[in-house]
């Protein structure tokens, strides 16, 4: 299927070209989100291996990663210049919200970790 492979190649190429135009701060956020989701996946795999015994620890471990990923995505939406919905919101304010939410999240995680 040479045609399908070349199509996929073209698709990825156009995607990466488009992504190259993304501002650096959004790229940093993307990297952070990928790291967080990867950590969460590793933990789910580990739980499948050893069982769900300290279930609260498992939940807090996974949820801390998922939570930071979700918060980072929210931050990305708010600081994106192309996003017209939040054009009145200064990026400093968005980052402050992000920090506050992270503090609350990790406070809960530490309490739940056991």
């Amino acid at each position, binding site marked *: 299927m040479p045609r399908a492979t070349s199509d996929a190649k073209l698709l990825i190429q156009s995607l990466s070209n488009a992504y190259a135009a993304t501002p650096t701060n959004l790229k*940093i956020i993307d990297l*952070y989100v990928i790291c967080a989701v990867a950590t969460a996946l590793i933990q789910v795999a580990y739980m499948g291996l050893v069982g769900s015994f*300290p279930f609260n620890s498992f939940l807090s*471990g*996974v949820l801390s990663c998922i939570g*930071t990923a979700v918060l980072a995505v929210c931050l990305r939406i708010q600081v994106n210049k192309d996003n017209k919905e939040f054009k009145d919101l200064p990026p400093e304010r968005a980052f402050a919200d992000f920090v506050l939410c992270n503090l609350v999240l990790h406070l809960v995680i530490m309490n739940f970790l056991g």
Partner: protein
Amino acid sequence: MATPRHLLLLLALALAPLLAVAAAEGAAEEGPRGRRLLVLLDDLAVRSSHSAFFGSLQARGFDLDFRLADDPKLSLHRYGQYLYDGLVLFAPSTPRFGGSVDQNAVLEFIDAGHDMILAADSSASDLIRGIATECGVDFDEDPEAMVVDHINYAVTDVDGDHTLIAGDDLIQSDVILGSKKIEAPVLFRGIGHAVNPSNNLVLKVLSASPSAYSANPKTKLASPPSLTGSAISLVSVMQARNNARVLVSGSLDLFSNRFLKSGVQKAGSKKRYERAGNEQFVTETSKWVFHERGHLKAVNVKHHKVGETNEPGMYRINDDLEYSVEIYEWSGTSWKPYVADDVQLQFFMMSPYVLKTMSTDKKGLYSISFKVPDVYGVFQFKVEYQRLGYTGLSFTKQIPVRPYRHNEYERFITSAYPYYTASFSSMGAFFIFSFVYLYHK
């Protein structure tokens, strides 16, 4: 005016409880039942014709009060206190009792936890039949009927109408009939009864043989008899839920000196016994009825955590605990350790979460240790012990079970280290990210 004599009387009244306590301490162990029996007869001749049975009761320490059943001063209780601890009703033909006693009074007497021996014969009155029916035993309704058995009758000098039965179909229970086997057949002449099938407290102690039937022996059988075969019970016992015991016999002669002393030979059998089994039978069953045997008591119910001795007010889930109880049986003279291997304990909340057979040290102490289930709530230690012939034991003790306290959980579990690492690494990643995000060019 208080004379010196009045003062003396007052002093005696004041000291009476103290003296009573002192006397009780000096006396032998206290049994489960008192020893005052009321014997109701419809003819005082029965007192001499059944003297051997009464003699055996008196020899065992019972205090017998013989009264005619229609005695106008008859009363079972006075000022709310029962005057007697047991009743021997040897008045089959009495149409109504004298004094304040009637069928309800007798039934209330049993409901209050007292025991009764009731003997009827072919002249049984409606009153006696009514009392028996209330105890789960239905006498044959035909007033002329007797139990007839043309195969398992007792051989007599004259070939009679085969109403003298030689019964040997006894219940298999050491506790009701004593540990010594009754070898000789039991002589019986009287009316048969059926045990009410909906009443599971009644037991047939002496059943008729399969060839028996209940009919008028003097006339020809016009229709099939209503009671036949081993469905006929000759002697039955009932132990009520309050442990009151009642024995119902269709034959008053069963207890008579004549039957107790006579020899017996069963038809078709070569073997002749010098003595019928009646004496042993009536002695052993009366011992059972008047709680000289088969009465259990449980004392010293204890429970504690393994390795401790104090009884806690509450357990935690997954605690290891030990439970023990002492069970004794009244032997007629003293409380003897009860030995069995089937006493079970339930740890109960709506349904038994733990049901285990307790181990015994053969000296009456039953104990068990187990782990509290992983469920919290209000539990009960529950022992329900119902065995044929024994009084029922049923006692519970309530105990709450709590979950772990917040600081009782395990910490730093090895298998959870990846989760800890992940949590802290996501915190660290947050700091690094913030730094990079704020200061990148």
